[in-house]
C-alpha cells in the first residue's frame, strides 16, 4: 500500500488507494459516492445483482477505520443510491458498531430519505477551513472539495497502450474525489494546465500529472 502525501492550502492530506483522504490534523477521513443500496435497488427492479458488493464497500471502510482510527468520517454525498431498501439496515448496523466515530453526510443528489438517524449528522455543505465540502462542485472562498463526478483519467503509452484509472483531481480552487463504491463507473476528465491528478493503480496512489 502506498499512500500519497499531498500538501494543499497548507494542509497535509494523505491520499489513500482505498479512494479516501485522511486529513491528519483534524484526524478525519473523507470518502465520497458510496452508492450503497444500489444492488438492492436493481434487484427490486428485476436485475439480480448480489448484495455482497456492498459488503465489500463496508469492509474496505472498516479497514480504514481500524488502521487510521479517525474521530470523524465525512461522507461526501451519494451515500445511498435510492429510496430505502434492506441494504440500509446493513449501514445502520455498521455505524452502530463504530459508534465512537462521528459520521457526517454532506447530502448528495441521491440522498433522498426524509429522515436520517441521529447517529448520522446530515449537512448540505460543510466548511472546515481551509476547505469547503460539498457533493457537487461549488464556487467558494474556501478550497472546495466535492465528489459526484466519479473521475477517471486515461494514460497512454507509446505502443498504443492505454489505462483508465480512477483518480483524485486537484485544480487551483477545487478538488474532486474518486467514487468509493464498488458498484460505480468512471467518467473520464480532461485536466487543464497546472492541474494535478493522482491515479489509483493496484494498491498505490501515483502522481499522473
Amino acid at each position, binding site marked *: 500500500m502506498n499512500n500519497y502525501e499531498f500538501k494543499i492550502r497548507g494542509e497535509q492530506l494523505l491520499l489513500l488507494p482505498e479512494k479516501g483522504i485522511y486529513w491528519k490534523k483534524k484526524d478525519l477521513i473523507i470518502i465520497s459516492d458510496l452508492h450503497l443500496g444500489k444492488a438492492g435497488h436493481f*434487484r427490486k*427492479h428485476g*436485475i439480480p445483482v448480489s448484495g455482497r458488493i456492498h459488503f465489500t464497500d463496508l469492509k474496505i471502510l472498516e479497514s480504514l477505520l481500524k488502521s487510521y482510527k479517525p474521530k470523524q468520517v465525512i461522507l461526501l454525498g451519494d451515500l445511498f443510491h435510492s429510496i430505502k431498501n434492506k441494504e440500509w439496515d446493513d449501514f445502520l448496523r455498521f455505524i452502530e458498531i463504530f459508534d465512537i466515530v462521528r459520521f457526517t453526510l454532506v447530502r448528495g443528489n441521491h440522498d433522498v430519505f426524509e429522515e436520517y438517524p441521529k447517529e448520522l449528522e446530515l449537512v448540505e455543505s460543510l466548511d472546515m477551513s481551509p476547505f469547503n465540502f460539498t457533493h457537487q462542485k461549488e464556487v467558494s472562498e474556501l478550497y472546495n472539495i466535492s465528489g459526484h463526478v466519479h473521475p477517471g483519467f486515461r494514460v497512454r503509452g*507509446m*505502443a*498504443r497502450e492505454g489505462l483508465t484509472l480512477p483518480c483524485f483531481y486537484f485544480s487551483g480552487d477545487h478538488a474532486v474525489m474518486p467514487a468509493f463504491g464498488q*458498484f460505480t463507473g468512471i467518467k473520464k476528465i480532461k485536466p487543464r494546465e497546472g492541474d494535478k491528478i493522482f491515479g489509483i493503480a*493496484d494498491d498505490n496512489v*501515483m502522481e499522473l500529472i
Partner: protein
Amino acid sequence: MAKDVVQIANSWFKKKKWKPFPFQVNTWKAYLEGKSGLLNAPTGSGKTYALWIPCVLEFLRDNEPHEVRPEVQVLWITPLRALAKDIQNAMQNFCDDLDVRWNVGLRTGDTTTTERQKQKKSAPQALVITPESLHVLISQSDYPNYLKNIKSIIVDEWHELIGTKRGVATELAISRIKKLTEYKVKIWGISATIGNLPQAKRVLLGEDYYKKAVSIHSNVEKDISVESVLPEDIVDFPWAGHLGTKLLDKVVPIIEKSETTLLFTNTRSQTELWYQAVLKQAPDLAGVIAMHHGSMDQNIRGWVEDALHEGKLKCVVCTSSLDLGVDFRPVDTVIQIGGPKGVSRFQQRAGRSGHRPGEKSKIYFVPTHTLELIEGAALRDAVAAGKFEQRKPLEKCLDVLIQYLVTLAVSGGFRPLEILEEIKATYCYRLLTATEWNWALEFITTGGSTLGEYDEFAKVYNEDGIYKIINNRAAQRHKLSIGTIVGDPALSVKFISGGHLGTVEESFISRLNPGDTFWFAGQNLQFSRIKDMTVLVRKSKKKSGLTPQWGGGRLPLSSLLADQIRNKLELAKNGIFDDVELNAIKPILELQSKWSIIPDKRTLLIEKVETEMGNHLFFYPFQGMFVHEVLASLVAYRMSKLQKITFSISMNDYGFELLSDQEIAIEEALELDLFSEENLMEDINESINKTEMAQRKFRDVATIAGLIFQGYPGKNINAKHLQANSGILFRVFQTYDENNLLIRQSMDEVMTLQLEQSRLMEALRQINSQEIILKETAKPTPFAFPILVSVLRRENLSSEQITDRLIKMQLQLEQSLNET
C-alpha cells in the same frame, strides 16, 4: 377439389398476361396438400406469389368466399420494416382482384397505437409482421385466442434471419404458435441461396416438423458480371482506408451513363460521405440523387423508395437497407464501394439490377485501398463458380430465452413444463440441459442464486405453478425492451422548427458542442441542444461538418471469400497476374515480395518490424476479423506467459498485429509451439478474460436478457437510477456471481464467433499444417500497413502489474517531452 382452386390462380395469371413458373405451381400444390417446407428463391423471382396465393386458395377451398371471420389466418414474417409495406400491398391487391374480402394488416415497430387497437378489436386475416412485433403480440394477455386459428406462418428472407438472435426469436414464436394451433399450422420459409439450405430448413421448421417437410427450388438463375473500377496509377492509390472516394472521378461517369444506379456502401457513415462526395463532383445530380440508410426517418426512406419505383431518381447511395426484398425495376446499374466481405451478399446486391428475363446483372466493384482489389478478383471467381456462404444457426442463446420467458410471464403467465416441451422442439434449444433450463427459471424468479443474498428481488413470481409478472411497471418496461437488436442508445434528430430526420447514436452527439455542424441524411445541420432524448438542430449553410458514426455493421470476411483470396495470392506468388485486378496491383505485390514474401497456402507469414511506436509482429492467417481477434489474444496471452509484457492488438480480415514497447521474444515463442492445440480451451478462456472481448459481447447479452434498460426516444420512462453500463455489471457478475450463465454465454459467443462456429479450430489446424516463415522487415510492408493504421478495436493484453505499466508509460512520456 384442390385442382379447382389452383385453376383460380392460373386464370388470375392469365388475366395479367403472365405465366406461373413451375416452382410457383409446385409450391401451391405442396401447400394445399397441407405440407410445410422451404422455398429457395431469389428476390424478384415471384416468390411472394408462390406462397401468398395458396394461402388465399386454401381459404377459398375450405370456406364459402363470403365467410370471412375476424381471425388471423396467415402470419407473414419479414425481417425488414421497409419491406413490409410493399408486401402488404401486393398481398392485398391479389385478394381484391379475386374479390376475397380479406384484410391484410401491417404490424411493425412503426405501426401506430390506433392501428394496433383496430387490429386488436377486429383481427385482419393476414398480418405482415417483424419478429420483434410478433413477440410484442405474444406479450399481450389475449394472444392465445388471437393466434390459435392461424393456418400458416410464412417467414420471408429466412437467410437474413438464420444465424441471428432475431432468427432464434422467430423459432421461439413459431414453437408457441404450433402448440396454440395444436400442431396444425403450416410453416414455410423463403430463402435466397445459402450454403446450408437443408440446415436452414431444419432450423426454421423445428425438430418436430422438418423431416416431413418439402424443399422447393426456383432454379431461376441470374447471370452476373463483375467489373472492378481500377485506379489510373496504383502508386498513388492508398494502401489503407475504407472510404474509397479516391475513385470518385471514375464512379461518376458510370452513374451518368446509367438509367438508375444503386450505390452500395458498407456503413451508414460511408453512405453520408459518398452522397456528399458525388454531389460535389456532379452538382447537376442535385434533385435526382438520394440516400437511404437505416437511421433515417422512415417517411424519408419511404419517399426515396417510391421515387425509385417511379424512376424519378438517377442514383441512390445506400447501405444494406436496400439489400433485400422488393425490386426496383428502373435500376440498371449497381456499384459496390469497398469489399462486401461475403459472396452471397455481393450476389444479392448485384441482383438488384437487370430485372428483365435473360438480362445480365452487372455490378461494379470499387476498391477503397490497394489490397481490396484482390477481393474483386476473388469475388468474380466465387460468383462464376456459384459458391455461397453458409449461415450457421445459433444455439442455446440464454439471453433470448430469458427475454421470451419474461414475455410469457407478462401475458398471463406460463407453466414451465409446457414451455420446456415446446422449446426443446426448436433447433436452438434442442440440446438445452436441465441445469441450464433451471438456471433460466431461477434467474427470472429469485435472481439466480439460492443463497439468500438476492432478497427483495422482484420480477417473475411462481403462483401455483404458473410463472407470471405482477408488477405493472415491470411488465411495461419489459414490453418496451422486447427485441434482440442492440445498438448504442439512439437519439432522434429533429429540426427546432419541427420535422423528424432520423436517429443518431448518443456516443456521437456527446462529442459535439452546441453550434457544431454535422452531416445527416444529406443535410448540413447545426447542433443546438438535447431535450428529452431528442437532438434539436437547425439547417446550416456550412460546407463542412462531422459525419456521424454508427456502431456495428462491420462484417468479417467470410471463410469462403478468404479462401478465394488465398488462391489469388498463390497465383500472384507464382507470377501469374491474369486478372485485371491483380495485374493492376502488380507493383504493390512485387514490393511485398521484395520486402518480405507473398505467402502461399502452405505458409504462415509473420513479419517483425520496429518503428517509433515500438516492436510490431504481423501475422497473416487470412481468416477474417473475428477469427483474428481470438487468435491474436491467444497468441498474445501465450507470449505474455513467457515474459512480462503488454501488447496492443489490432486486426483486419487478412491478419493481426501485436505491438509492444519492448522486444518481443517471438523466436523463442515459436520454438515452444505458439499454436499448439494443447491446453487450447483453457488458454483461450484466459485470453478472453484478459481482454475486453467477452465484456463487449455481454453488452448485447445483458440488454436482451433485460439487465440493461436502454430507454427509448420519445418514450419518456424514467429509469435513470437503473442504468449501469454493461462493463460494471460484467465485473460485478464476474466477482460476485461466477455461475452466471450470461457471462458464460458471452464467453461462448466470443469463441463460437457467433457466425461460423468451427472456424477457429479450422484456422488453427490450418496454421499447424503450415510452414511458419518469420521475416524481419525494415518498414511495414503493403500487407502490414492497413493493419498498422487501423483504429478499429484496439485491445490491450498484459501480464504486467498496472503499477509497473504506469511507471513505464510515465517514463516514456517524460522521454518524449525531453526530446521535444
